[in-house]
């Protein structure tokens, strides 16, 4: 009996999942996939590649060869962990910061550079053709995920839509509306909030009065779980469980991956204006790459020589992609009319010709 003798008619709980402590030691028995050393190493490699890609992208931006860019520094475990639990036929709906998930799914590094370099051709993924492009208007991809999930359910396809967004996005009606609908129809959708503590300068405590973001799923009628988003094993385990359940017809899930954005919001931001450097330094102790490396090294699955070789490989792969990106010939301006409609309406052909002529002249 609660206060005033009124009966309690419902109670809810939110679980938190973590396996690897910041020093790489284990908190609880690892999930089954973790006995696959090759898989763990591939997660590690993907995170290191992402960090090295990020570093290069920032350098390109600083030297005027790339546009505004959003780094994943400190939160590499989320997009890599989530994507690694997906099948290729599932559909990813990423936000602008989810380069790691795209790379895992086979999008070429030079395609990602083209996008951030201001060229729409970067969105023409040669890999997963049904995946969505990066979503810039925050949270507006969540309703798409519900629509995608509905299509899968209607056609009885065993596929799952996986939608990634930030903590700030959970304040938007779009996200709640999508979750609500997915809950009503038990859609095969996994919603993932990367809670990196910041929406540009706005800290989580000004974003929500909730103790967790995971509990937002409760109002939509499904399970919300919190995971340590700097522990790639936990992220992958939660994603795998949620995706398997969704594929199995059990409906949507919500994962809140708690992590920390160690870098600026984007290359246009200066985080030192709104958060003290000491806080950031303290968070470096929890970052996902060193954590998994410590674990792998402790298990004799990773050596210093492996690390050096990986660094060299990443460097080579990133540099080669940058070369291909920089060598991509510019498009004629009239191509801005391409893909505007299936068939360009006759009235706009004149405008297209005008642009083409200008280029010749």
């Amino acid at each position, binding site marked *: 009996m609660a206060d005033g003798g009124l009966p309690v008619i419902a109670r809810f709980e939110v679980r938190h999942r973590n396996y690897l402590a910041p020093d790489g030691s284990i908190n609880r028995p690892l999930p089954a996939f973790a006995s696959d050393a090759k898989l763990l190493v591939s997660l590690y490699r993907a995170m290191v590649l992402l960090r090295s890609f990020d570093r290069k992208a920032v350098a390109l931006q600083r030297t005027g060869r790339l546009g505004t860019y959003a780094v994943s520094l400190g939160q590499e475990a989320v997009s890599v962990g989530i994507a690694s639990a997906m099948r290729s036929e599932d559909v990813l709906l990423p936000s602008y910061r989810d380069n790691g998930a795209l790379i895992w799914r086979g999008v070429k590094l030079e395609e990602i550079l083209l996008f951030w370099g*201001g*060229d729409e051709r970067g969105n023409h993924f040669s890999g997963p053709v049904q995946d969505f492009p990066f979503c*810039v208007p925050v949270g507006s991809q969540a309703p798409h995920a519900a629509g995608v999930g509905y299509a899968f359910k209607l056609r009885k396809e065993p596929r799952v839509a996986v939608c990634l967004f930030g903590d700030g996005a959970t304040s938007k009606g779009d996200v709640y509306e999508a979750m609500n609908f997915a809950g009503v129809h038990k859609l095969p959708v996994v919603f993932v909030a990367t809670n990196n503590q910041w*929406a*540009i300068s*706005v800290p989580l405590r*000004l974003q929500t009065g909730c103790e967790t973001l995971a509990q937002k799923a409760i109002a939509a009628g499904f399970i919300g779980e919190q995971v340590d988003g700097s522990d790639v094993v936990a992220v992958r385990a939660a994603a795998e469980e949620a995706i398997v359940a969704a594929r199995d017809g059990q409906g949507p899930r919500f994962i809140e991956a708690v992590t920390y954005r160690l870098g600026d919001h984007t290359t246009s931001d200066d985080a030192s204006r*709104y958060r003290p450097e000491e806080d950031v330094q303290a968070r470096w102790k929890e970052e996902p790459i060193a954590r998994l490396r410590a674990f792998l090294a402790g298990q004799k699955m990773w050596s210093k020589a492996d690390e050096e070789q990986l660094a060299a490989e990443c460097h080579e792969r990133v540099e080669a992609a940058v070369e291909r990106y920089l060598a991509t010939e510019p498009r004629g301006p009239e191509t801005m009319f391409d893909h505007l409609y299936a068939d360009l309406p006759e009235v706009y052909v004149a*405008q297209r010709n005008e642009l083409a002529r200008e280029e010749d002249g």
Partner: protein
Amino acid sequence: MAEVTLVEAINLALARAMEDDPGVLLLGEDVGLNGGVFRATAGLQKRFGAERVLDTPLAELLISGLCVGMATQGLKPVGEIQFMGFLYPCIDQLVNHASRIRNRTQGRLTCPMVLRTPHGAGIRAPEHHSESTEAMLAHIPGLRVVIPSSPERAYGLLLAAIRDPDPVVFLEPTRIYRAAKGEVEDNGEALPLDVAFVLREGRDVTLISWGAMLKETMAAADALAVEGIAAEVVDLATLKPYDEVTVLSSVAKTGRCVIVHEATRTGGFGAEIAALIAERGLASLLAPVARVTGYDTVVPMARLEQKFMPSVGHIATAARQACQFS
């Protein structure tokens, strides 16, 4: 008098309005400690406190809806939307509530709010950051839509917008936020709304524009002057309701009109002005009204963005053609 950038002029106007009227408050994403992504609200939270300079959750519909609620209670909220591409969730609130609450309640409730947002392309920003869909807003009855084109007009028009008893959408030309500099006296004096500014007098052709495009338009007028063509340049400044008198009298004087906007052509605000001249200024026309606009495409990302924007050359060519028409 201090030389300031356009965005600094906005900061000055906001500070002045808050100083003068304790009911004025600012709200939006990152407007507090961070001072806004363009620094328009820099230093204001420190000066006026977090209750009056409010970092909201990331929710544009909420920002606009909060403004409506606050405004009905006699506050003067100034909401900030980080880019025009993120203003669209506010349309529901603007169309269905802000713009018509006075009318719906026959004056019992009113909505003296301002919604500020950067406007336009040309800053090499990511997708959805380059919108110039002012025509959509200008279509809404009961709203005011204002676009300054210089620091001086940014200061004066923003003060006027905040003091106005009705809702105003204040579109800030992103491309010249820092590029435009000018002397602004922080004297608290507003400029009139609903009035166009004649930036340059001329007898041969009228060039009409607003916001950042006035930069190219003025440059085109300079180029034309060298050739002996005297262009009159009109800064429309308020698009809703717009100053029909100034438009018509300028065209009556010159007989020729070129309208310049970076928004896409079809259904752009240029069409409205051309229609006005066709209806009420036809007799004075010596040449067809011309439009120099963005193309009917999505604003391309950085690599092709410049090709989308009207250039000085495009404007001058259109003006020359108008002058040669016979």
